[in-house]
């Protein structure tokens, strides 16, 4: 069957394109004369047309009226988007720490790309790292910290552990609050803040330990 070669033109035809509108289009003209004598293609055109007409006549699904109230409510809770924080370059810091440049890593966090950030206007479209990204960074850093922190002196190690525990408590409390009120932006923000703080502390721990090793 030589019909298949016209299959790409059937849709245009169904959509209303005619050879008369496209004088230079030889293929379209050829298709139309083919169509006149081909039952298979006529069937396709008929079916496609029925489908297209039925589709365009489908009613709209109406969103529930409460949806706007929900959106408006959620917007009320969000501050005008700006970030005072110079974003913690989570992935970048991790890479630096792994490369062994300990103090360099400390230098990068949290000032990071400070020079650019200071003069740039706050990026209102930037989205802070999501919870999943934090968890990932934390897992990696925690592993490094566990491997290396034996070289730290006991007093410092104790301070770091104590404060890590304090942050973990804050994370747990935020999670519990979020479980109670899943739509609470405050609880969500608290959780992300705590996760961010944990990443920073772990970075410091790893950097300090690496520094020790380098001596």
């Amino acid at each position, binding site marked *: 069957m030589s019909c298949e070669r016209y299959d790409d033109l059937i849709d245009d035809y169904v959509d209303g394109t005619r050879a008369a509108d496209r004088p230079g289009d030889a293929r379209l003209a050829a298709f139309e004369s083919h169509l006149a004598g081909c039952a298979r293609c006529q069937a396709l055109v008929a079916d496609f047309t029925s489908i297209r007409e039925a589709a365009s006549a489908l009613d709209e699904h109406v*969103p529930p009226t409460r949806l706007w109230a929900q959106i408006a409510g959620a917007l009320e809770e969000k501050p005008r988007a700006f970030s005072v924080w110079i974003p913690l370059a989570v992935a970048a810091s991790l890479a630096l720490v792994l490369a062994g440049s300990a103090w360099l890593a400390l230098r990068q966090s949290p000032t990071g790309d400070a020079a650019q950030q200071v003069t740039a206007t706050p990026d209102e479209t930037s989205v802070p790292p999501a919870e999943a990204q934090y968890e990932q960074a934390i897992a990696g850093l925690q592993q490094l910290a566990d491997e290396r922190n034996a070289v730290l002196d006991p007093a410092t190690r104790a301070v770091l552990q104590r404060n890590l525990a304090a942050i973990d408590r804050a994370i747990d409390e935020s999670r519990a609050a979020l479980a109670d009120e899943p739509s609470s932006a405050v609880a969500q923000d608290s959780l992300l803040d705590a996760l961010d703080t944990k990443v920073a502390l772990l970075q410091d721990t790893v950097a300090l330990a690496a520094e020790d090793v380098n001596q």
Partner: protein
Amino acid sequence: MRTADLELAARCRAGDADAFEELYRLHARRLYSLAVRMIGSADEAEDVLQEVFLQAHRKLAGFRGESTLGTWLYRLTMNHCLDHLRGRQAKISRATASLDEDGAAEPVAPAPVVPSAISRMDLERAIELLPAGSKAAFLLHDVEGFEHREIAEILGISEGTSKSQVHKARMKLRVLLSR
């Protein structure tokens, strides 16, 4: 059209709550319908719509008028729908995967097989069974009335791909709706 869009976007950016509600009223129904049909669930479609408008509120600062506000919102909506679908279990895709194969092998009968008046229910059900890619193109083209050029922009594909996806969708629906 663009000036009105840019004006509305500017008012929304400036914190004009009424302007943002206006944006919602203009587009919510169509976007919601699209989401319901793409995902197949009214509840999830509600979530998607909420995500889309909250994201739109954040990202309006970056809207420059290269597309219309509508196209821009459709793009956000489609992305969210596709994300939701990707997160779904394989059940639906298994069903549609077999449709893919069937569609390829199906000989085209030399007579119309689809009723000339298709019931809405049947059509909605059939659309639900389409695989994500051709469903997206079909909904935007045959249901929403976008041109292939616009669909290309919304879905981030070429016009040619848009056409072939619509063709695939129509072929499958033909099989699903045949009496």
